[in-house]
């Protein structure tokens, strides 16, 4: 590895479309950068926001969630749920000072090996430009993040206070 910063990206790929797109990228020998580490889930809808937070907290510099295109979900519509969670999560992460490019939602059908590889390369490039996240290392020092988290916890508690 060279001296330049090499980001680590964790990617959650759905079993039916995106993971197969990654398979296809392989069988078609489409080269992409080695910074991405793929986790197979049955559906992008399985991606619990805590998976993403966990990855960041353990040292990932970026996280990709990839699923079937809208309307093509193997489980009818669960990718829409992934999409909702993605926007919610992005809002959360943004308020904690994290750059948008570190979390990416990518649609890739089983036929889109080229597109998935291109998206991975693009994301690696973007995250490389952002530099290391070092989330966990900065955790205790970075008071802003703690404050933000406190505010979010408050917001969330208020939002949950719905009359029964």
């Amino acid at each position: 590895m060279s001296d330049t910063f090499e980001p680590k990206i964790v990617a959650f790929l759905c079993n039916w479309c995106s993971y197969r797109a990654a398979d296809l990228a392989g069988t078609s020998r489409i080269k992409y950068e080695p910074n991405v580490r793929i986790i197979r889930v049955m559906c992008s809808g399985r991606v619990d926001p805590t998976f993403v937070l966990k990855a960041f907290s353990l040292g990932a510099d970026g996280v990709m969630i990839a699923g079937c295109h809208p309307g093509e979900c193997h489980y009818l519509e669960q990718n829409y749920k992934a999409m909702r969670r993605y926007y919610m999560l992005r809002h959360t992460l943004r308020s904690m000072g994290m750059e948008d490019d570190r979390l990416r939602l990518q649609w890739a059908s089983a036929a889109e090996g080229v597109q998935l590889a291109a998206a991975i390369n693009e994301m690696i490039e973007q995250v490389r430009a952002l530099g290391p996240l070092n989330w966990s290392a900065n955790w205790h020092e970075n008071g802003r993040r703690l404050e933000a988290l406190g505010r979010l916890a408050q917001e969330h508690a208020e939002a949950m206070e719905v009359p029964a």
Partner: protein
Amino acid sequence: MAEKVGVYICHCGSNIAGMVDVEGLARWAGANLEDVTVARDYKFMCSSLGQELIEEDIKKEGLTRVVVGACSPHLHEKTFRKACANAGLNPYLMQMASLREQISWVSSDKDEATEKAKALISGAVRRVIEQEELFASEAPVNPNTLVVGGGVTGIQAALELADAGYHVYLVEREPSIGGHMAQFDKTFPTLDCSACILTPKMSDVGQHESITLLSYAEVEEVTGYVGNFHARIRKRARSVKEADCTGCGVCIEKCPKKVIDDVFEAGLGYRKAIYRPFPQAVPKYPVIDREACTYYLKGTCKACEKFCPTNAIDFEQQDSFLDLDVGNVILATGFDMFDSTRLPQYGYGRLANVFSNLEFERMCNAAGPTDGKVVLRDGVTTPESIAIVHCVGSRDKKHNPYCSAVCCMAALKFGHLAIEKTGAQVYSFYIDMRTPHKNYEEFYDRLLAEGMQFVRGRVAEVTDAARLPGEEGKLIVQSEDTLAGRQRRTPVDMVVLMGALEPRHDARETALKFGISCSMNGWFTERHPKLDPVATMTDGVFIAGVCQGPKDIPDSVAQGAAAAARVMAMITKGTVLIEPVVATIHEENCSGCRICNNLCPYNAITFLEDKGVSYVNAALCKGCGTCVAACPAQAISGAHFSNEQIFSEIEGLLYDAISGNGAGHKVEPAGVPA
């Protein structure tokens, strides 16, 4: 108790070993990863020797978990699960790392690839430790089969199954089965009469006691899973009672309304408002075209009803629905013909004597609109020269990049028929002559001998603007002759465009309905392009014929039979294993909030009023895991994809980041204000 993990790194010949230091990787795993007791590399792990290696270690070393670093789990997960089971280890205690598809085939630097491989192996090892014993359940296979599409492929598949004694529901969208083949006159290279070989098969289907033929019908909805699908079929209203109709055809004879037949006659001929697409149609019952019928338009006429000897006409008939239970599905939905008006430079639809291949096919057919005579659009003049243009919409980046596979041979067939019927000078404008099957090249040789002229080059334009003497009143084919190295202007009387085969316009909707996927071009995707061409990624759904990709009649028939053989194997076995990847709600943690209830696309989650908790019906659950992700109390666990398993995999994948940034230490939760 600490687990004993065995790690097996496959060289895959040089496929992985060429880009990843496999020996080093195995040594590293054995030395550095916690709980790994055995780590080996082997030339081909999927070979029987490779599998035996794993089996022996499980028995001798007492391995409790296995990690195989090889190809994609989509290829060999079953192989290695079986090896584990053979040695007495629960198959779900095995995890694969896709070193080939995700690393060696996509990387260009060996050091980087090896580093990435370490991360993937580390992730798989951490994950497998959290994996739990699971037990696949068995479900019976319903012996009935749904075949969608009644072209020659669907017919073949249906007959193979029915002849073996299994019941088939054959659903066809058009009023008759037969598909494109029924429209053809001759078939290449033998010049067999298409109808002579197809219609006996069609009537076999119509008469077969094991085939329920549902024509003029479409599949509305499919639910269920392999062995136990439920399909809802919409039978469109024929306006003819099938039980009473004898197929005598008096109604067609007496119907006063003629309309252009855009489907079967490709717009060259007429049919009545009550019609059968062609005389040998199966089933024999006619259909009233409600958009053309005078009664539906103006409220009077009813000539067909008056003359029908069995009172079979029913103007009030409504669409009806049929619910079928089937074990397997074969999709043989075929193709659409390329619409040549999309290439305006060829003049189709603008210049009268430019014909589509389907039009020419109908013209050659003795039962067709011209009684088998090849004539110009005026209906009487015999052409003295004909140009056949290849690759119209095929091998063209603006339209379809693929080769349509059948057009070269069809063009040769047209050449032969045109020479035989008219004695005309026939020119073929081709890019490459593709004749790759038995007796195909010989047919090409025959046409060379018969005097068909071949010009190698794509046609730029077909025009009626005469510029040179001898071009007046002709169509001029402007092309490049790449063999002679010059431009040609070839004046002819008739031009035939060999349009591409395209996926059905609604192929993507069909794919979605049956839970399968399409290629970028829109053809249905097979499970494996070489070794599993008729199965799909969805168990119990098979594909055959052109819907999978362009192919000719023999290949389509072979695939239809192949799909039927696959289905027969399922029926004969009688049961299928159902993956135990389902969600379970732990009642003690469930607060009864019901957030999960509405998330489930299969309505598998119900709220138990008496207990105040939600419950997952395992038979309906497909294991997507959305409810698991959504449960605020983490009361739902997803088998084989549990939070613990994914968390551990993340930890393993980021092993190098964790040691570098100190994140391995637990983050103090008290740091977060309440």
